[in-house]
């Protein structure tokens, strides 16, 4: 029993580390642009498919293909935001959120148009799972975790030490003060769309590396992504990491209580629970 639980916790930490990547993307966009951008769902799918093309059609190994997932999803994020969502922002965050849901449908169907509905798997070398004291973990999972941690470390360094990173935090913290200090909010908005959607795409590919991908890959992940962001505190980047680990482990442990079908319902319950008892999330809404 102990080892079974430990196995579930390990699985949860693996899933949570991967989930943290798109959750950071969602929460960072929220922090700067102040609306829930549902299009993270379709950008996770775009990233997963961009990585698929790089991996299967061009033969790039998974650890290199994730760069394509990031870049293509990031570019799509900037373009869509610039031309479709940004002009709507003056009409209010909720109208923009509605447009982003429409964007999910649009982008998902662009993918479906070219790739169809079939499940696709990445071209991965097959390894036997490692066993460490009765606990199983796959080499691919370890690679995914390492990729996720590297991505988060780069983001952390970027936000802490670069001028643009600091500008981004400043706008998230206090847009008025940031504009008085001469920070170009438009530029920061583009940057956060690129980085945020790029991370969503990277996260989508990491999720796909574990199983398989289809046009709904991103949409299926949307409840856990929201849950991670809300549990940690909407707009808070460290919060998204804490939230993602909580949701990852919680989903695995909920298997014992609710059964495997309800994994994703755990995310919804976590959102309700946190909103009832700690409306600003575990770490509050400060960006960083």
């Amino acid at each position: 029993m102990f080892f079974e639980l430990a196995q579930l916790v390990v699985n949860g930490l693996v899933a949570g580390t991967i989930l943290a990547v798109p959750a950071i993307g969602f929460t960072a966009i929220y922090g700067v642009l102040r609306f829930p951008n549902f299009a993270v769902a379709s950008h996770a799918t775009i990233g997963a498919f961009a990585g698929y093309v790089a991996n299967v059609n061009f033969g790039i190994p998974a650890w290199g293909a994730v760069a394509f997932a990031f870049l293509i999803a990031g570019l799509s994020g900037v373009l869509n935001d610039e031309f479709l969502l940004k002009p709507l922002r003056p009409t209010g965050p909720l109208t923009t959120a509605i447009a982003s849901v429409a964007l999910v449908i649009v982008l998902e169907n662009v993918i479906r148009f070219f790739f169809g509905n079939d499940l696709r798997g990445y071209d991965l070398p097959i390894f036997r799972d490692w066993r460490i004291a009765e606990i199983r973990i796959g080499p691919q999972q370890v690679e995914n975790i390492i990729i996720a941690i590297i991505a988060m470390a780069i983001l952390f360094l970027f936000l802490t030490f670069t001028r643009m990173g600091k500008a981004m935090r400043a706008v998230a913290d206090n847009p008025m003060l940031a504009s008085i200090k001469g920070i170009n909010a438009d530029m920061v908005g583009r940057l956060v769309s690129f980085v945020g959607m790029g991370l969503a795409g990277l996260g989508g590919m990491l999720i796909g590396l574990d199983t398989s991908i289809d046009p709904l890959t991103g949409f299926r992940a949307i409840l856990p992504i929201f849950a991670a962001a809300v549990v940690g505190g909407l707009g808070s980047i460290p919060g998204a990491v804490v939230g993602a680990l909580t949701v990852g482990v919680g989903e695995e442990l909920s298997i014992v209580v609710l059964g495997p079908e309800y994994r994703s319902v755990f995310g919804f319950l976590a959102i309700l629970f946190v909103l009832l008892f700690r409306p600003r999330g575990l770490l509050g809404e400060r960006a960083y």
Partner: protein
Amino acid sequence: MENYLIAMVTFAGIYGIMALGLNVIWGMAGMVNLGLVGFFAFGAYTTTLLTKDFGVPIGLGIAAAFVTTAIAGVVVALVTGRMRGDYLAIVTLGFSETVRITASNEIWLTNGTDGISGIPGPWRGEVSPETFNLIYLGIVAGFVLVVFLIMQRVRYAPLGRVLRGIRDDDQVVAVAGKNVIAIKAKAFALGAGVLGMAGAIYAHYTSYIAPDGFVPLITIYIVLSLTAGGTGSNLGAIVGAFLVVFFMESTRFLTAVVPGLEAVQQAALREFLIGASLIVILHLRPTGLFPERITRHEAPEPPASGAALKERSQP
């Protein structure tokens, strides 16, 4: 062709009822509901279980769908009541996904992804299918009319004014001594109830429901209907629903004439067009066909002049 047209008008009517339900929540009270398909599904399953498994009369099933969905709406509204609208967007979407996952997995209750068939319909089996369709069209038209009249009444009643006040600035309403959260919950309950009722009407019409029928695309249809018709306008909600059904059906013919497309590509193209048209309308004509007319009252004449005021204030 006649049967096809009758079916489409019936569907447009059901969408119209849903758009009316959304209009209370989003158009009048300014609360976003991105999971309205979840409430629709909730109502559909409620009446199905009651009428098929327990032999409850259809009318009672539809009423029960209204009540249970309204209760679900109250819960959602109260949980998110004190928070900004962003949270409501997330929670409602989560709600609809949770309903769909539950319906897919609780096989003992909902028969899982296979869905439930053989849902009773009024006089189904006793009359020819054509007559049934005509009767049902009449029933749907009746519901549309009744819901429309009730919503018009709400809109011009004190409640409607308070709702628009909450939409435009809820702090002002709170300062005026209104219990904002209770009123929001009331509006959300009414809207959710109407959505659930639409679900029940849909279930008795098609006689078959499955989780696959309750995808987020339906939410987009209804939001598109209301936006195209004019957010806040009840007439706009109904007209918008008819336009959307007409548009959707014409894309069916449109994608069929594009050569060399596979079935999945045609479906993808149609869904693409639906999503794209919502984005386009939000950009080009966000107020819709019937923009909300707000009667403004002239401010009362200022007392004589500033000088007079000054004099009076002196002791």
